[in-house]
């Protein structure tokens, strides 16, 4: 156990040295590190609990996705049956299905054949399993089209992908450093924005679908009449925003131009009233449609609708041909700016709900860093002194090994670009305890072997070889716990699992190689007549 070939010793020292080197960028100012090659710049990332910031978990509203899908399906059924000139009644959405009753029994089969064409094979690897978007069945002259669960799931997944891109654009507008936006599970999006003091604005930007429509106001019916039940089937009642949230408008359901046709939106001021406004510009198709509509409807009011709320309903004074326009509607400078951001980033395919939020202010983060540092220094100092008092020279060896161990933990954390959290610091402190334990196991074993009458070199050799098996066993059990914690934990807790797990790996490495190497060189150098522990 105490004999090392020269190349093996070199390999051990080199490995430890290189791993420790990776920790270096953490202790240098970023101005120095920035000029280094990318691979050398890896460093430990401070968790949100240490540097402050917001962690926000969003969920795509699956019910909204389902509802939208079912309504689109209902419209498709209507279109298909009309085109095929098949008479029907009672076209409704019921549960997960669209139901329709065919008037004449003889037309049920042709209707079924036509409606089956609406069902498509699911894309991707699901397509191979033969699954389709719809189950189409009939019961007498009732036809039922059920949207399959995989189809909904696929749609939710797409919605998440699209939403991530849109959220990225929105968050980037906040000008924050290194925001993290990623998918979690099937229907969730995790947004982490470091260094954000007040997440209110971020949440406002994330919480809005930002679906913008331009629609005509139906002037044939007054809102009062409509509210009393005289609502034409192609119209709906929507309300104003903010202070006008009680003001009803009767709007056509038909969308003239939608936010998808916008190419740009910028906050500005109305030159006449100097009120904050949002200036927008349509793409070619949008501009043509908008020009057409405004030409036909001069003198009539139209409504600008955002997320089913009417922002404003101006009267068309003259045809708008340039493809550019202005939205005014009691904006503040901030809200005009936010709306412009939202319009530029585009509408979310489905509403998002915030299901978890954790925000740490910079003050608490700084305090936590200070407490983490203080407690680790004090903890380390006490352990170092205790080891020196208990094992003397070998205690010093152990302390050197533990120092290398901690440096290697930082090196590995940097290499993995891992996140350091306050519980993570606790994990490192605990690792110091565990790392010391491996030395204690070895030394106690050596003491025993000495008592059993072995010569010093023999005792040291036997002490190492017998203790190492125990060290491996005891560390693997702790490692299993750390691995489980990594999988179930989030945020700070995961940080604890990471440092604990890495700490166990470095502990086993140093116990098996580094400590042994130090002791081996000492034995070769001093040829001890008695073991000083």
């Amino acid at each position, binding site marked *: 156990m105490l004999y090392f070939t020269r190349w093996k010793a070199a390999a051990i020292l080199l490995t430890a040295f290189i791993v420790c080197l990776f920790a270096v960028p953490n202790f240098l100012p970023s101005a120095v590190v920035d000029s280094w090659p990318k691979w050398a710049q890896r460093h430990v990332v401070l968790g949100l609990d240490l540097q402050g910031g917001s962690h926000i978990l969003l969920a795509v509203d699956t019910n909204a996705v389902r509802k939208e899908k079912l309504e689109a399906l209902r419209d498709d059924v209507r279109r298909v049956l009309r085109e095929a000139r098949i008479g029907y009644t009672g076209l409704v959405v019921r549960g997960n299905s669209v139901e329709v009753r065919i008037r004449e029994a003889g037309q049920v089969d042709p209707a079924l054949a036509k409606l089956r064409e609406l069902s498509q094979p699911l894309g991707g690897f699901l397509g191979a399993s033969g699954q389709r978007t719809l189950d189409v069945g009939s019961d007498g002259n009732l036809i039922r089209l059920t949207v399959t669960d995989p189809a909904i799931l696929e749609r939710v997944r797409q919605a998440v992908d699209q939403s991530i891109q849109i959220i990225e654009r929105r968050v980037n507008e906040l000008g924050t450093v290194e925001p993290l936006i990623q998918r979690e599970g099937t229907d969730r999006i995790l947004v982490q924005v470091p260094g954000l003091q007040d997440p209110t604005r971020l949440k406002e930007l994330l919480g809005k679908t930002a679906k913008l429509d331009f629609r005509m106001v139906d002037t044939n019916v007054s809102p009062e009449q409509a509210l009393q039940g005289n609502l034409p089937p192609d119209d709906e009642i929507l309300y104003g925003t903010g202070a006008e949230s009680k003001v009803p408008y009767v709007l056509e359901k038909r969308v003239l131009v939608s936010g998808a046709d916008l190419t740009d939106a910028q906050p500005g001021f109305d030159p006449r009233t100097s009120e904050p406004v949002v200036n927008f510009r349509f793409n070619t198709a949008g501009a043509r449609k908008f020009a057409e509509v405004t030409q036909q409807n001069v003198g009539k009011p139209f409504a600008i609708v955002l997320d089913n709320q009417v922002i404003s309903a101006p009267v068309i004074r003259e045809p708008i041909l340039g493809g550019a326009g202005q939205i005014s509607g009691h904006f503040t400078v901030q809200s005009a700016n936010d709306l412009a951001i939202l319009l530029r980033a585009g509408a979310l395919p489905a509403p998002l*709900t*915030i299901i978890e939020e954790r925000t740490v202010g910079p003050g608490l983060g700084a305090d936590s860093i200070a407490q983490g540092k203080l*407690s680790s220094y004090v903890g380390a100092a006490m352990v170092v002194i205790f080891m020196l008092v208990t*094992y003397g020279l070998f205690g010093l060896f152990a302390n050197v090994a533990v120092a290398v161990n901690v440096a290697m933990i930082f090196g590995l954390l940097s290499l993995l670009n891992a996140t350091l959290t306050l519980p993570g610091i606790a994990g490192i402190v*605990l690792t110091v305890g565990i790392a*010391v334990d491996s030395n204690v196991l070895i030394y106690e074993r050596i003491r025993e072997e000495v008592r059993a009458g072995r010569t010093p070199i023999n005792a040291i050799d036997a002490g190492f070889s017998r203790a190492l098996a125990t060290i491996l066993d005891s*560390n693997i059990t702790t490692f299993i716990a*750390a691995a*489980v914690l990594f999988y*179930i934990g989030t945020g700070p807790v995961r940080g604890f699992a990471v440092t604990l797990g890495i700490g166990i790996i470095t502990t086993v490495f140093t116990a098996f190689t580094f400590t042994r190497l130090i002791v081996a060189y000492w034995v070769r150098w001093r040829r001890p007549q008695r073991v000083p522990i």
Partner: protein
Amino acid sequence: MRLLRIVPDNTKFDFMRFRRVSFPLSALLSIIAISLYFFHGLNFGIDFKGGTLVEVQTKAGPADLARMRASLNALGLGEVQLQEFGAPNDVLIRVAEQPGGDAAQQAAVAKIRNALGENVEYRRVEVVGPRVSGELLSYGIIGLMVAIIGILVYLWFRFEWQFALGAMIANVHDLVLTIGFMSLTRVDFDLTSIAALLTILGYSLNDTVVIYDRIREMLRRYKRMPMPDLLNASVNQTLSRSVVTHLTVSLALLALLLFGGQAIHSFTATMMFGVVLVGTYTSVFIASPILIYLGVGTGRDALSATAKDEKDRG
């Protein structure tokens, strides 16, 4: 320099005799812990219960808890708990989960921010909606189960099944007592508590495994020694190591407990209890003597004889 010997060489404590005391004692404590859990309950934090937690620091002078409480209670958010947190100007506000799903929680936070105004610094805001809290709890429980089973399987491979079973009984005993401790002290039971429990699990096992390793070694070496004597010898031989290790870990934890701050206080306190008090006691007084009852070492001669035979043939 004379080195510190905390435990003298060649101790000969009769630990196994204590099993007549330690087993009933542990059984009693476990029953108390379980009753605490059922009748006193755990103080579930927002991770598992859902709701809102806000930590604020007043900008001018100590916080006026009564006034803050009055203004927050006027919001109609149900029960609002206020608590001084570490310093007189630091206040922890807990609001129970609001009915009405995820969006309602966010609305509650907005109301709180409005009510407290600009006179406070928001140090921490945590909002956990009903969907997430349910998942976190089930993940936590599944995680504990998976860890216990994983460790059990590992031990089963490395030792005989009796050792694995003994370690597991010892483990569950540790967890039960620690949960009792958490119930008694009313510390917040949240994700960090699960982290603490898992660490206690790993650490206490670490200790048990060290002793088991020695027992296994002794079983191979002394084929005719009566089990209680053999177990006693094993525990005594590893006693010095146990004491030294626990002292170093306690020192590290003590530093965290004293200087680690409020954020990890309940975490370290739980760990201190679990690792230092229960873990040590368990590996010596429960995990080792239980092997007698699980039948380790009975028929050793027969076993080793077969092993020898196989070796000869191989």
